[in-house]
């Protein structure tokens, strides 16, 4: 089989524009939450903005990452207010506002809103990331924010550390690189996200995959067709992610190391998963479909291929092949 051709189809069936209605619902819900935050916090908050994959143009249509960064002013929760107080206050506000419409959960640095299924059965998920500028009125100039770590995030301990970052820089860094090399970096990021999505709740964050893909392109010779490039990135991750000196600098703050968002065993698991994938696809091309499946909702059937084998014109249903 032509692995690159398959991967192209995978990307095509995962295009976000194919789920326009769902995308519109996410945008609309994101705007509602944004307005609610602005109404509640008035002049204490700068304009909340979307920092998820949609903003970075790396989204896939099976999982919409809508992260709404809410940049608060330094004194929004009192001049002595702590980051924890900021996080708890935003959680309380969102919980009270949406408890009847959504599951409201405390997450690593964000507060997750998972709205109950609407009449179409669609569930909208928005993660609100509360951040606070470093000094009063400084955000306008430097766009730097401190985030609160609610619970253990890789090697970053819960409640013990603040993450200082610049989310706008993060977005533009990835978006710019992806735009420049759109046939490479963006496709690889989307494919790795498709793979991550097959794993359910995987510890490696999309942001990690975005940065590690860019780093692989910066540090390895990544050429050839789409499969060659994906393979080279996977090999880079496999060979490097568990190395002692491996770092992933946060484009929003070079002193943040995104490699710390995974524990040593999670990094080992990521390397093992890459190895397994490479080995299995090497053994049998068909295994690529397990790791990088098409979105069945938008899969185009080969009209020339008869689904069933035939026996003198009579269709023969496929036999049962697995047993217990």
């Amino acid at each position: 089989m032509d692995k690159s051709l398959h991967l192209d189809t995978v990307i095509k069936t995962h295009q976000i524009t194919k789920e326009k209605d769902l995308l519109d619902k996410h945008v609309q819900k994101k705007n509602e939450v944004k307005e609610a935050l602005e109404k509640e916090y008035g002049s204490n908050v700068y304009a909340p903005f979307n920092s998820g994959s949609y903003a970075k143009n790396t989204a896939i249509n099976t999982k919409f990452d809508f992260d709404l960064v809410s940049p608060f002013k330094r004194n929004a929760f009192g001049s002595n207010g702590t980051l924890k107080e900021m996080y708890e206050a935003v959680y309380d506000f969102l919980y009270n506002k949406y408890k009847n419409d959504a599951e409201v959960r405390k997450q690593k640095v964000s507060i997750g809103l998972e709205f109950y299924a609407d009449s179409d059965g669609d569930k909208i998920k928005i993660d609100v990331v509360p951040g606070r500028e470093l000094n009063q009125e400084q955000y306008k100039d430097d766009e730097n924010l401190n985030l609160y770590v609610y619970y253990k995030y890789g090697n970053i301990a819960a409640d013990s550390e603040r993450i200082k970052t610049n989310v706008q820089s993060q977005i533009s860094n990835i978006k710019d690189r992806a735009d420049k090399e759109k046939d490479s970096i963006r496709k690889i990021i989307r494919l790795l996200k498709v793979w991550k999505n097959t794993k359910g709740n995987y510890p490696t964050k999309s942001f990690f995959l975005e940065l590690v893909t860019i780093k692989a392109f910066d540090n390895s010779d990544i050429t050839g067709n789409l499969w060659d490039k994906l393979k080279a990135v996977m090999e880079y991750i496999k060979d490097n992610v568990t190395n002692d000196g491996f770092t992933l600098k946060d484009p929003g703050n070079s002193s943040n190391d995104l490699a710390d968002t995974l524990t040593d065993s999670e990094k080992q698991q990521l390397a093992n998963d890459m190895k397994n994938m490479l080995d299995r696809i090497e053994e049998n091309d068909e295994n690529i479909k397990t790791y990088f499946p098409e979105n069945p909702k938008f899969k185009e059937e080969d009209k020339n291929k008869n689904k069933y084998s035939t026996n003198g014109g009579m269709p023969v249903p496929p036999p049962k092949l697995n047993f217990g």
Partner: protein
Amino acid sequence: MNDRVTEINTVIESIPDVKLIKPFEQGKFDIEGCISVFVEGLEQALNFDVSISPQYPFKSHDTETIKFSNDDLLEYKHIMGNGSICIHTAQSPLLSEKLGYDIASVKAWIKKYYINKDTDTHYEHLIVSEKAFKGNHFAFFFNEVEYTFSKNQYGFVDYSTLSNGVFYKDKINSNIVQKFYDRNRKILADVKWNFQLKSLPIGGGLFIFLKDAPSNNQRWIFDNWNEFETLLPQDFLKFLHSIEKNATKEKGKQLPLFVGYNITDTEIHWQVIMLEIGNFPIYGEKVNQQWLTMIDGNRTIDWAMTRNCSYKYFFGRGRLNEKLTNGKILIIGIGAIGSIVAKTLVRSGCTKVDFIDYDIKEPENVCRSEYSFFTGITNKTNDLINEMCLISPFFEPTNGGYDYSEAFDFFLKSHLTDTTIKTEIEKRLNEYDVIFDCSADNDLLYVLSQLKINSTLLNLSISNHAKQLVCATEQNRYEFICTQFNGSVLKFDIDDLHNPTGCWNPTFKASYNDINTLVQSTIKHINLRFEQNKALRNFVVETDDTDCFTIKLKEF
């Protein structure tokens, strides 16, 4: 003197620090002699009578066929009742080499237990000789109970007979302890066993908790009743007398007396004395105008066998990881794969295991599953529960059974769009820590993939001729199984299927050995990942028998 005797004398004389006190001679059966053995640290060499059986240098029934005895050493550790040292040495088919090993073992014993007076970290049980009582051997199995007995507390015991078997050339009757009551028949402790054991008919016995072991030197249990004279309180002897007096109609029947003592601060061991109603080893005597119950000290004690069958001992030789053994497990589909998984888990320490299967066991299922012919046609769930109860006294099924299985299938497949029912099913399934779906029902596989299940869900299915076993463990289970079996990935024979007589679906061809080889490898890998605290990934166990048999596990 024959060659063997000459060789023994020659070899012994050549071993350093060993002297022949009395040269070896051929006895009626054994070759016998006396030697002295010196070890640095001894003031003088120790003498041993040595007897060598005709099988030597081979072991017989896992026992050494050479004995080194010295009656003066009885108080030391690892000395048998006849004064011989308990040794287990290396194997050798050469008499001279084996003698060298055995003498080295005697020297090691002298150093460790005679000179250094070492004590072992593990508890050594009292030695009880296995004697028949009225022509029958008796064995009693007990379990730990959540009750603390006090010294000299006594009362009644319920026990149940498990089976009557053969013990070498005699009959043996095996029993389990069911309940302890105080002297007023108020329940003290209900012993935990599986529900079938708990429903067995009850027989009665007595108990006394002595706290201290009924032994003079912590090695051998009392032989005669006179050794109990200072231990058994007068009120207990009176209790014995009243029991016997009120049971005249039961004369001649056996009555087990459980004697308990601590072997550690928290652990109790029970020994059992077999009493005969009408022939208790007691008598009345008037002392200072008062009738006292006295012990007939000349009588020998009839000890039965006892075994501590509590969980940690029962599964002491090996069990699976705690994620499985402490977990609540559901097995959906108990055909060939599912029943083997069930039996492996239950034998390996899992206790909370439920089964779902609507199917009936037929005689032709027996050859490659864990069912028995004897039970005939019956629901698979009922039959497997029975089989598991026979294996583990701790097996506790809570849900499952035929009605549950039918309801599960119906609600799951017909109400997938009903949010309330879907949520309820998710809640039920999430009560399990691990779910094995061995049904090979791809509709069920699909439906389960649409649910939010936090439990570890493992789908196991097998290809024709048991060429491969596919274990899908990840969120993409449905797609993984479909891709693996769609004919492009796994290669196996799809035509040579087994067609049962009658209108029925063909099934795969494979023997119990073929299937079990794959299932055991699968459970081994799952257990390993739990041990390593690593995430489980989809995997395929693949066999190749084109030349030598090989088996390979491929993780995805």
